[in-house]
């Protein structure tokens, strides 16, 4: 079996080396920033949850679900992590999963770690969390907000790949075809991601509402 048929994430060689290294440098700087900001999100209650969220994302990413004949999708996890443990800690959670998958399971290239983390962790979390905050402010409903956040986060992560391919794609395949196909498939994957994210966030909120970062954050803002 060839490697690229079973892997879940971008292999080495799909984006050329200079552009891959450029994204790796951006990611190292961004994760350093996240590490400093995460200190404010983490306390004795949230540390165990953050560890568990990373492990849960690893587990659920193994379960590809069908979206079209011959095409599957899997959770990326950015919106899920950000809603539960905060955006900075959440970005670190998804990044840890991608590092473990690349180095331990040979899934996702090593020079491609920068681009994979930029898409699924940084972009997925930023777009997903931004959407979650806005949607929750307008609807005050956690489940639907989580669903929408996951859809937007997934599509933005896919568009991250399209941008990287536009800058440093190593193959002579038309950008418009890649962009259209990535958008369509990831809209469908986003719906699956949205269902998983909404169910998970709702389950945690029912059992331990004190643990859900998005709820704590908005509660802190309201009394002022």
């Amino acid at each position, binding site marked *: 079996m060839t490697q690229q048929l079973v892997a879940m994430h971008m292999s080495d060689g799909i984006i050329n080396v200079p552009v891959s290294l450029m994204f790796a440098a951006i990611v190292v700087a961004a994760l350093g920033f996240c590490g400093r900001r995460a200190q404010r999100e983490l306390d*004795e209650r949230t*540390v165990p949850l953050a*560890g568990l969220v990373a492990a849960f994302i690893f587990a659920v990413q193994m*379960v590809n679900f069908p979206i079209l004949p*011959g095409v599957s999708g899997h959770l990326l996890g950015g919106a899920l992590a950000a809603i539960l443990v905060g955006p900075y800690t959440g970005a670190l959670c998804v990044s*840890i999963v991608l590092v473990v998958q*690349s180095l331990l*399971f040979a899934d996702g290239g090593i020079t491609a770690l920068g681009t994979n983390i930029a898409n699924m962790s940084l972009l997925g979390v930023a777009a997903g969390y931004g959407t979650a905050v806005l949607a929750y402010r307008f609807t005050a409903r956690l489940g639907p907000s989580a669903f929408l956040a996951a859809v937007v986060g997934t599509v933005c992560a896919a568009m991250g790949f399209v941008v990287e391919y536009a800058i440093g794609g190593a193959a002579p395949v038309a950008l418009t075809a890649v962009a259209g*196909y990535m958008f369509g498939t990831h809209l469908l994957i986003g719906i699956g991601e949205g269902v998983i994210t909404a169910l998970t966030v709702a389950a945690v909120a029912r059992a331990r509402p004190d643990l859900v970062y998005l709820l704590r954050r908005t509660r802190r803002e309201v009394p002022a």
Partner: protein
Amino acid sequence: MRFWAGALILTLLIAGGVSYLASAHPDGLDSATLRGCEVVEVDGAEELSGNCIAAHADEHPLTGSPLADYAIAGRDHTGGLAGVIGVLVTLAFAGGLFRILS
């Protein structure tokens, strides 16, 4: 305590059991990179023929490593155990890092 135990057990069950039900078809990104190629058998091994993005992909440098492709030493039907190991490693790595950061 019940919450933490339940969440960990659920996570291990997903990685160790539910993962066997996963679709084996390529995901959105992989199918995008495979468009334009056909998978052909050459001497019993699968290769790509045609012009697609995935034809430019390099083999992972750790392809021969013990847990590569979510299997134990490449053996069939060991994905569940590989998944359980992955969950525990991720939990230890993330838990350790977040403890240091907090």
